[in-house]
């Protein structure tokens, strides 16, 4: 059963192609991440699926229903978390959720019960009459998420759910999203962070200029883009060639990149722990002291470098 099917979606704003023949299928009950830089068409795609934008060319079906032909029926089955927290700042969390519940035609009593249930579930029960204005970024986002879950949607759209949040807020939202999975909800989320896609999604589609340029599971994608990377910073630029030779000799290491300004070298590695282990020993034996040493996920820029051969 497919929750989302997009076939050849096109949308232009003036001369800019926001969507350029975008195809995607998402099976029910999975989490699918759409990864791409600013302006890649992520938001346009989500807004099209959520019936906020008219389909210009191509077809989109959500929960098996054509979004252009029967938008009202699609709306009964989806939840949307937009880029900014779409809640009323002057009202309390409970008032917001009750308002949305009534607009979903739950009736006053069920709307109140559902609001209480969601506040409890997202750890907001003790916010009382406090207006949303006084919430932290993470709390606001959790309330926003709760508001998009009032009808237990079959499909939930999350448009850059953690952009602008501090690390703590990000963890809060990640935990909230994880708690949804298993309930059978299909989640489509957009993000600029490979780490976020890796953490949350079953499958990832990388999009650029309004079309999918790569997709697969996080592991498949990491295979394509070289997986984790190791960075080494040395005391002086003169040590870089020697350090680069050491890093290149580490089993499973890919092409080493040098950055003289930052006195650093960087390379993709196959097995992060194994590579780190080798590297530390080899640097020690070569008498090179590392000022800094880090294992990290590739940045979006590096992913694009690998996939398209060009910097964004």
């Amino acid at each position, binding site marked *: 059963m497919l929750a989302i099917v997009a076939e050849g979606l096109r949308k232009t704003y003036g001369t800019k192609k926001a969507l350029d023949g975008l195809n995607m299928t998402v099976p029910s009950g999975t989490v699918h991440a759409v990864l791409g830089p600013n302006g890649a068409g992520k938001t346009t795609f989500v807004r099209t699926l959520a019936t*906020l*934008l008219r389909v210009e060319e191509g077809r989109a079906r959500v929960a098996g229903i054509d979004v252009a032909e029967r938008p009202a029926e699609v709306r*009964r089955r989806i939840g949307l978390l937009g880029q900014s927290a*779409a*809640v009323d700042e*002057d009202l309390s969390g409970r*008032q917001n959720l009750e308002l949305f519940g*009534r*607009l979903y035609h739950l009736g006053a009593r069920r709307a109140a019960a559902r609001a209480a249930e969601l506040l409890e579930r997202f750890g907001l029960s003790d916010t009382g009459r406090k207006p949303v204005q006084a919430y932290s970024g993470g709390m606001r986002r959790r309330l926003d998420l709760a*508001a998009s879950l009032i009808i237990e949607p079959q499909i939930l759209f999350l448009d850059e759910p953690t952009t602008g949040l501090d690390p703590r807020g990000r963890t809060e939202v990640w935990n909230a999203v994880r708690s949804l999975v298993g309930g059978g909800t299909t989640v489509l989320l957009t993000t600029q962070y490979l780490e976020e896609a890796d953490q949350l999604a079953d499958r990832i589609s990388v999009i650029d200029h309004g079309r999918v340029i790569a997709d697969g599971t996080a592991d498949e994608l990491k295979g394509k883009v070289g997986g984790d990377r190791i960075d080494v910073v040395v005391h002086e630029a003169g040590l870089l060639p020697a350090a680069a030779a050491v890093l290149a000799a580490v089993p499973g290491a890919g092409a080493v990149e040098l950055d003289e300004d930052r006195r650093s070298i960087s390379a993709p590695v196959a097995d992060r722990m194994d590579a780190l282990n080798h590297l530390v020993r080899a640097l020690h034996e070569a008498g090179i002291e590392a000022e800094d040493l880090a294992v990290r996920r590739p940045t979006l820029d590096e992913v694009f470098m690998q996939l398209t051969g060009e910097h964004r």
Partner: protein
Amino acid sequence: MSPRWWLADSWTMTRRELARWARHPWGAVISLAFPVMMLVMFAFFIGGGMQVAGGGDYKEFLVPGMLVLTMAFGLEGTMTAIAQDLGKGVIDRFRSMPMAPSAVLVGRGVADMLESIVSLAIMIGAGLAIGWRWHGSPASAFAAIGLLLLLRFAMLWCGIWLGLIVGRPDLVMAVQILVWPVAFSSSAFASPETMPGWLGTVADWNPMTATATAVRDLFGNPGVAGTSWAAEHAHLLAVLWPLVLLAIAFPMAAARFRGLSR
């Protein structure tokens, strides 16, 4: 969408605004007190030096002008609220829900008209307190209030239209500043005859002047003795102007709202 749900959704959206007032009573008090403060300032600080063209008490001239100004300035509140909801994505959320989309605008309209009725009642009370009176029949007084609310209704749709165009709360300020010269180039505070040539003509044809003159006439207040065509047909213009504004702003606002999906 059945009419029943359309009504229910519109009422829910209206209640959202009422809940806001309940949460921020001081905000509501300040916005209601602002025109009262203006009235007092103009009546007592400036009014002593003002002469009404054709004779009469300045306070009697001023109060209908202030009532018109209060209605016209309602545009700002409507525009700000719409721009805020749009800018923060609240309108997007409503549009992604299985509710009647038009309820977003209808709820805003009902709430703003209710606020204007309250504001009008307070201003009439303040006018009575500083010595203004109506001298005509109760029917004329109601007709005057009807004209005032008609102007507010036209301003409501202008505000919705502008709010949808502006779309960002930070741009609202620019429009707010422009409201002032438009308001002052009317007969709200002084008769257009006392203004320099072309400005007097602009003020003569200002929709606010038409409503102010008609309302003064219906209340039996002074300052309706203008001799221009516009001044002599103030009643007609006080009905026509808001209808013309509505005929432009309503379809434009509706098109803009539908165009959000473009």
